[in-house]
């Protein structure tokens, strides 16, 4: 049994690991609709998944000024960018392993927060809204 550690499960943007990340989370959602009818016996609902969507969030210490401007530019462009995730390893834990966990798709950068606090490392949070299916 091989357990994957958090540092080896990384969010990728444009096929590259988002640098200096401390945490990431991915949400896959099936939107359910209650399709029970009068024909349904009993009191319970019967759900049908009518659509799916996904999103991803990452926290980083991404403090390089060029990277900060790039984030703002990506946000302003309002265009989907390649986003995915994979098991990673190797140099700086950034080498995609193309393992069973690899997923890729396109997503909009729909939220970002850059925290510039006194006596703290600059911290950045990014939220991506997936658009279209994952492969």
């Amino acid at each position: 049994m091989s357990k994957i550690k958090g540092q080896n499960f990384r969010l990728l943007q444009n096929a590259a690991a988002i640098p200096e990340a401390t945490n990431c989370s991915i949400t896959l959602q099936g939107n359910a609709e209650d399709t029970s009818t009068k024909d349904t016996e009993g009191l319970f609902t019967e759900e049908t998944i009518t659509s799916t969507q996904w999103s991803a969030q990452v926290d980083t210490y991404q403090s390089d000024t060029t990277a900060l401007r790039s984030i703002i530019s990506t946000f302003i462009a309002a265009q989907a960018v390649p986003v995915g995730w994979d098991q990673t390893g190797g140099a700086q834990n950034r080498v995609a392993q193309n393992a069973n966990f690899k997923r890729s798709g396109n997503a909009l950068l729909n939220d970002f927060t850059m925290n510039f606090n006194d006596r703290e490392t600059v911290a950045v949070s990014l939220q991506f809204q997936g658009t279209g299916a994952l492969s």
Partner: protein
Amino acid sequence: MQKGQYIRLLVSTAANPLTVVAAAKQMALHGSAQTEDSSSKDTTGNALEYEVTGQSYDITGSGLVLTPNDTLLTGAVGLNDFESWLQDQVLNWKICVMEGTNNRTVVETIASGQGKLTNLQIQAQNKQNATYNYTINGYGAIVPGADAGE
């Protein structure tokens, strides 16, 4: 890694030149996009497709309340200035990497734009420094790097 004290907010108005916020403690730039499900019957599969239909941003921060004659207010802005901006007044802002004495020499601009002060709160807890928190709502687009309205 870059430390927060070296990245500061500077503000100018039509009447006042660009000056740094004195004795700042925290500052954050937050952008948010309004997205809309744009998938239709023409969309193959079950996955929803989204597009951005609106964008907004705000700058929030906090600082220490200084007495009006504090030398740190020389060439800088403080609570009194924020109070005067709490009206329908366009502020020009820049977020810059700073260095030098009191971290007040601009090295590099990260982003700039225009905004309006929408919220100002003063906190004065017993046995603690008095502080204030502010929110500047973006007015128009963020400009990465380049100046806006200067």
